[in-house]
């Protein structure tokens, strides 16, 4: 029953998307209001069908309807309800269905929210969007069909991959990643729409940037959640290993971040139009490459579920999208109209800093891409199996990251159009002082790693610059209007939220950079094997092994090692790392015990427990400042979202030069 209903919904979604794509292109060419109305109705039809199909699958999972293929694949009566619901994205076919569902949410949001805006390019945008929908609906209807009936109906299923039911974060990392990843299709479609429509007024890029900021903010958090999950579950004590699946999420983020900055130059100066579109289209293509890498099984990871035919199909789709993007840019690039050029630009200006930032981000993206796909090309070429080691990525990420944070401090300090030498020097004096003072203090207090000192220096430099950009307008407003500090702050945030959001995002980057430098540079670790009653010490903590316990749960069993912790002599509680045994997995899945404090985390990862629980081997790590990594990324993301909020005043105004300094 559910199989038939699900199949019907998927086919309906496919039909709506196909019809919407055709009518959309026709309406774009003929400017027919009727055609556009039909296109929007089809978009809503696709969205509703695909969202209902997802809800139906959740219903099938929760009711353990093993006559549905996907439920028989990942369902189990013993799995707790929480993990049963999130099994929707625990395997290949469900995750493609979920992808279509998220796509549906975006399509509806755009078709309804922008119904009467940007009429020149919206029909084309919806047409391109629904063409992508056709591809995903086709996947769900054919090779990735999760609704296929199963006969005879099994009594029970194996449950989801143990790694995916081992931590509550699994409910958050995949959906945020999908909202980020899938969302990149919207700016892609808008960019294509703008190119197809052509001859748009200068303001065309502002809504595009806004629709990019939303998926960007989600992708930002999703990358962090993936690292956090790896930290909490995999037991090696790190959060980032330059693994292909991590790189797959990082590359579109880099390209997208570059676009968010170059788009401002398009708005302000009318230049970098083509380059910005290259970045935008690349972002979307990189999300497809990332999906291919994680879903096709070319890289062995927790993300590659089983061998499937989806790899070649995805490669084909990437090829089509690449040809489409390049062709569209080549044929329609000349139709883009920018803001009128306003005078010459000095070499030391915000524009050139953004250009330099773009170069750094592009090199970063290509470096990660090279290191990620090199093993694939090498194996295809001569069969050698290898991987590119972390040192390669680290060696290049460090200087590129340093340059990026440095530019983040310089750019906002310089005016659009450029400053003359003396004025520029004055603006940079305070940040430079901060950038020298902080590493000096750090050195005096015992931090001697050159990489960490460099990271602290550029972070302090950028911090002074960003804080000044946030505080100065408030003080100026208070002085000019006689408002209280609170009033002036609220007014500045509400009136220039786009600019404030950008600087808040920059503060998040700075916090993240400092946390990365400290956690990567000053980690301490020790491997110990302790008998009952034994103690060990690390970073001011003393842990005492009080015994092993055996835990039985419906879906798994576990052994745990119990430790009591004291810090500087005072008791701070217990720590219980464990190893979980799932019935269908040969080796255990660990749950490290993480004791988090603002200054750092004490991390106990259980390696083994001797028979009878007489002794336990644990890997113990002290990682400074790691909490601030999670916090910093969330601040970055929230800043981006604040910046994406549409401004009611701006919308009514004709697109002309905004007041100097009104926006970043």
């Amino acid at each position: 029953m559910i199989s038939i209903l699900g199949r019907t919904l998927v086919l309906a979604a496919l039909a709506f998307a196909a019809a919407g794509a055709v009518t959309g292109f026709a309406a774009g060419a003929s400017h027919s209001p009727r055609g556009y109305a039909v296109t929007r109705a089809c978009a809503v039809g696709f969205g509703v069908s695909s969202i209902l199909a997802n809800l139906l699958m959740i219903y099938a999972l929760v009711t353990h309807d093993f006559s549905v293929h996907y439920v028989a694949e990942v369902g189990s009566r013993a799995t707790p309800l929480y993990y049963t619901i999130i099994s929707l994205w625990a395997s290949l076919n469900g995750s493609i269905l979920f992808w279509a569902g998220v796509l549906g949410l975006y399509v509806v949001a755009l078709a309804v929210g922008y119904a009467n805006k940007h009429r020149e390019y919206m029909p084309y945008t919806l047409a391109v969007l629904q063409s992508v929908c056709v591809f995903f609906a086709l996947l769900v209807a054919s090779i990735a069909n999760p609704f296929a009936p199963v006969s005879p109906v099994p009594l029970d299923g194996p449950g989801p991959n143990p790694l995916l039911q081992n931590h509550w974060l699994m409910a958050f990392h995949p959906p945020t990643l999908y909202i980020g990843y899938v969302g990149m299709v919207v700016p892609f479609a808008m960019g294509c729409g703008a190119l197809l429509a052509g001859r748009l007024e200068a303001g065309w890029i502002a809504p595009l940037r806004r629709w990019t900021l939303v998926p960007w903010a989600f992708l930002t958090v999703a990358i962090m959640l993936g690292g956090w999950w790896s930290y909490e579950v995999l037991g090696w004590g790190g959060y980032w290993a330059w693994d292909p699946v991590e790189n797959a999420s990082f590359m579109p983020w880099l390209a997208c971040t570059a676009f968010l900055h170059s788009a401002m130059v398009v708005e302000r100066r009318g230049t970098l139009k083509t380059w910005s579109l290259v970045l935008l289209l690349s972002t979307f293509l990189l999300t497809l490459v990332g999906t291919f890498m994680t879903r096709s099984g070319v890289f062995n990871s927790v993300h590659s579920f089983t061998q499937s035919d989806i790899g070649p199909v995805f490669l084909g789709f990437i090829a089509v999208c690449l040809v489409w993007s390049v062709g569209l840019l080549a044929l329609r690039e000349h139709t883009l109209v920018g803001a009128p050029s306003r005078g010459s630009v000095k070499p030391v200006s915000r524009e050139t800093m953004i250009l330099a930032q773009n170069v750094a981000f592009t090199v970063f993206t290509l470096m990660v891409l090279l290191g990620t796909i090199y093993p694939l090309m090498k194996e295809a070429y001569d069969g050698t199996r290898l991987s590119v080691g972390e040192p390669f990525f680290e060696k290049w990420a460090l200087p590129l990251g340093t340059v990026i944070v440095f530019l983040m401090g310089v750019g906002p300090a310089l005016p659009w159009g450029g400053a003359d030498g003396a004025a520029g020097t004055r603006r940079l004096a305070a940040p430079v002082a901060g950038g020298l003072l902080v590493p000096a203090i750090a050195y005096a207090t015992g931090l001697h790693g050159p990489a960490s000192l460099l990271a602290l220096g550029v972070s302090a430099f950028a911090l002074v610059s960003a804080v000044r950009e946030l505080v100065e307008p408030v003080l100026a407003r208070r002085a000019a209007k006689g408002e209280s500090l609170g009033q002036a702050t609220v007014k500045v945030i509400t009136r220039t939220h786009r600019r404030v959001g950008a600087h808040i995002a920059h503060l998040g980057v700075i916090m993240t950079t400092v946390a990365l430098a400290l956690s990567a540079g000053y980690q301490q670790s020790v491997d110990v094997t302790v008998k009952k009653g034994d103690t060990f010490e690390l970073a001011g903590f003393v842990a005492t092994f009080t015994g092993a316990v055996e835990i039985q749960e419906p879906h798994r069993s576990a052994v745990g090692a119990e430790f009591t912790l004291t810090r500087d002599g005072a008791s701070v509680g217990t720590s219980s790392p464990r190893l979980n045994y799932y019935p269908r997995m040969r080796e255990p899945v660990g749950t490290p015990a993480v004791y988090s404090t603002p200054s750092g985390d004490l991390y106990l990862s259980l390696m083994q427990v001797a028979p009878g629980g007489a002794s336990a081997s644990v890997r113990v790590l002290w990682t400074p400042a790691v909490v601030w990594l999670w916090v910093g990324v969330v601040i970055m993301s929230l800043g981006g979202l604040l910046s994406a909020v549409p401004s009611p005043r701006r919308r009514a105004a004709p697109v002309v030069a905004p007041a100097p300094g009104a926006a970043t």
Partner: protein
Amino acid sequence: MTGRPLAAIAAVAVAGAALAWIGMGDLGENLVYYWSPSELVAAGAKAHGATIRLGGQVEAGTVDWNPDTNQLKFVVTDGQEHIKVASVGAPPQMFREGIGVVVEGTIKDGQFATDRVMVKHSNEYRAPEDGEKPDIVTLSEDGP
């Protein structure tokens, strides 16, 4: 922006040069090779200094773990060649004779030195075959 072509050309040149440097320079130095014991022996001098992921079986009767110093020694074999491995750290819970392992490290003093021992498993998720018991170690079963 006046001088736009100049700026754009400069940007592309900088990006291109940086990439060429990255690609030519040290990609080769940072490769991790996936080798079996036979391939490792066949590589000869090329294996020295390189980071290697060695996969094979733990040879029976060769496991020597000292809990006090955290030194773990064993031999990895693929049936043809035998590689002595010296590892730091406790063996993973499922580590035992005959099991498949992957160790990552380098050749040092004629031994394979590593601090990363992974029990090899298939990521592919499969249902157990008939009669196959889940591999669960419980405290009571193996109790003293």
